[in-house]
Structures are given as C-alpha cells and as structure tokens.
C-alpha cells in the first residue's frame, strides 16, 4: 500500500544535505511551511540555495533559516518587505548571494522544471538590465528572452488537506507557488493541516496530484508567521 506519511517534521527533513537546493512554498507569510523550516533549522544543513518569492519576515521561518547562516544563496523576486531585516543585513555584508528573478518568470521556470521543459521564451525583462547577458530572440516581430527551468532537490510545502497518496489542497491565496514547487523538486515534503483517508478529497478538487508529493507530515495546528511576528517571537 502506498503511504507517504512521515512521523514528524524532523524525520521529514532529516536527509536534506549541506548544499541542497530547497524550494520553500509561500508568498510572504501566506503558505509558508513554518514547522518544516524550523525543523530544517534544527537539522542544521548549511550552504543551502533557497528558492522562495521573498526572504522571510521578522526572525522566524525563512528569515530565521537565513539568519542562522544556513543559506548561501537566495533565488527570489522580492527580497525586501516591511518586516524583512535579516536578509538585507547579510546581503549588505556580502554573506549571502542573491539571484533576482521576476515573479512570473520565477513561477514559469519552476513549472518548466516540473513539466520537462528545459527552456522557454518570455517578454518579461526585455529592454531592462535583468535581461543583460540573456539570449534574445524575435517571434512575430516582438523580442523575447530565453529562460531556463529551475529545479530543486527538495521542496518544503504547506497544504490544507492531504491524503496518504499525497493528493493536496491549499487554502485561498496560500496556494501561490506551492503546486509548482511540488512538481519541480526531486523530493517534495509537505506539512498538512489535515490528513484524510484516500478518497476523502473529491478527485475534481485535488490541486496537486499525489504523484508530485513524496512525504507528508500532519501539523494540525500550524503557527502562522504573521502571528509569531506580532507576538515578537524568534527561532530557535
């Protein structure tokens, strides 16, 4: 019988090695798999390349992972925000590398990796410094830039409902990059608020089919980054 359940967040992330490329779901606080990130902090892998739209907020979750010195490179579209202090400090000190990718190109590069598409063309960044050094090409009299797929070794994902086969649903705008990252990582690790038997999710309502998921941990009362920050928390 197929059963992708994993007993704890610690077990789920235990084999992430130093130097791994890790996608982290979420857009800002929404959809951020805080418990899995904190487990990765406890686990201690370093030299990570992390792919996320942002760079975390406050001193919990992704910001805490960065602050703990475990991340050597961020690939994201928007590394600043009102409560983002950890990344800017390390970046200015030259202690962390940054690859800036427009948000839509970031999403499409991740999808391409999951879909077996090694490269595609997009109009985004044409005529800007972010296209410097990239290959340009004309189609139908318009100029496009070629962008390569973006793969990862691991993805850390937060879902709303999951079954033991790995079928997932998400909650509102917490969906964001997560279904794409599930497709693009060699090993996709999911924390879910609710774990239900196979068949309980209507096949019409599955957002991420189980084929894209490797491990599931139930975290039935997940903390939310916004709540932690409002409470002045930090991790560890």
């Amino acid at each position: 019988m197929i059963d992708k359940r994993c007993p704890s967040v610690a077990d789920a992330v235990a084999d992430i090695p130093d130097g791994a490329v890790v996608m982290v779901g979420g857009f800002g606080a929404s959809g951020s798999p805080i418990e899995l990130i904190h487990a990765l902090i406890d686990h201690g892998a370093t030299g990570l390349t992390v792919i996320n739209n942002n760079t975390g907020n406050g001193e919990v979750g992704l910001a805490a992972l960065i602050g703990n010195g475990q991340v050597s490179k961020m690939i994201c579209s928007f590394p600043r925000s009102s409560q983002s202090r950890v990344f800017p400090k390390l970046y200015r000190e030259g202690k962390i590398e940054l690859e800036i990718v427009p948000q839509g190109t970031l999403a499409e590069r991740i999808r391409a990796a999951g879909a077996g598409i090694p490269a595609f063309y997009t109009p985004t960044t044409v005529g800007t410094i972010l296209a410097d050094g990239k290959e340009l090409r004309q189609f139908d009299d318009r100029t496009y830039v070629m962008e390569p797929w973006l793969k990862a070794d691991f993805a850390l994902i937060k879902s709303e409902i999951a079954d033991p086969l790995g079928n997932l649903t998400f909650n509102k705008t917490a969906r964001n990059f997560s279904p794409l990252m599930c497709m693009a990582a060699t090993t996709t690790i999911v924390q879910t608020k609710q774990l239900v038997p196979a068949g309980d999710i209507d096949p019409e309502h599955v957002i991420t089919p189980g084929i894209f998921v490797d491990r599931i941990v139930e975290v039935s009362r997940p903390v939310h980054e916004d709540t932690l920050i409002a409470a002045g928390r930090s991790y560890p």
Partner: protein
Amino acid sequence: MSEGWTREQMAARTAQDIPDGSYVNLGIGIPELVAKFVPQGREFIYHTENGMLGMGPPPADDERDLDLINAGKKYVTALPGAAYFHHADSFSMIRGGHIDVCVLGTMQVAENGDLANWSTGAADAIPAVGGAMDLVQGVKNIYVITQHTTKTGEPKLVEKCSYPLTGPGVVSRIYTNLAVVDVTPAGFQVIELAPGVTFEQVRSRTGASILPPQ
C-alpha cells in the same frame, strides 16, 4: 501635494477611464485607491498576482483570514465569483494578455513610455522586482498614477529615465496630481488639466517637452 488633484481624486479620475467589465490589476500605493472609485454602473474584477481573481475590499480587523492576502501582502476579501489559482496560472493571465488594465505607481516615466519603478540603481540598493516586469509586458493597458514631481520637486515625467527600466515603451497614460497625460508617438500629450492648474504649470514641472490639451 496641495495643488491639483488629491490622491483620491487621481484614483477616481483613473477609474473613469476603465471600461465596465475590465479585469484590473492595481499596484501598491495610490493605485490601490482606484477600487474605491468605481463609476456607478460599472464592475471591475480585480486580479492579484498571488493567485486570485475577484478580490474584494480589506476585511474588518476581526474578520481577517491570514491566508487571504493580496500581492502587497495586505489582508483582503473574496467577492462572489472569485477564483483561486497558482502562480503559473496567475502570471499566464498577465503575460498572456488577459488582464485589461494595470495601474502602477512610478519613479519615472519617459516620453516614449519607458517606465522605471523598481530600482533606483543605487549601489547599496537591494534589487527587488516582484511582478512589475511581467505586468508591464503582459497587460493590455498600463496606466500610471503618480505625483507630477518628487517630494524634492524633481520631474517624474522625463525625456529619458535615469533609473533602471521596468519596461521600455510600455506606459500608455499617466494620471498625476496636475494632469492626465497620454504617451503618444509625438511624446507627452496633456489630455486634461486638474481644476485650477494651468498648462504652463504642468509644462514647467515636466522634464520633457509636453503638448497642451487639444
């Protein structure tokens, strides 16, 4: 800030140019105010990059859903007929030309429609582009709402952007506190002056040649 249109009036003026039934993406800042001034009898459907169509107004503080935010990471609501989707679908809507209007703030706009609104290019600036470059290339009509000059009085409508571009030749219309200005093959063209503002005032605060209302 005290002359010409207020922020709210700029937003209201912008809303008047958006046809009924449009799919609209609003940038952070003054553009967000457009949603407060939908002309009577019209309906706009708001898109937010992080995966929703049918975005509604902010919730009351005690009705917040932590998982329901917009691209500016503010809490929002969902209207009847809303839909959630992932980021690749969301940016397919943008890049694929399905969104009718995007209203953005800016640092500079050039007379050829070049837009610079993502980076000062300063040596110590941390680059952060978000979805701006996708929006300006993909959305059918790019409108800009901005004060006519910076806080220190520098023109924001210029011959050539000195800041790094978000996209070349992408802006079609600009709503400032002083005027509504079209980007035309002949350069900036004033379409309408704010009440009490003269064309000469607009011209003197514009960093490029600009044509008077016809």
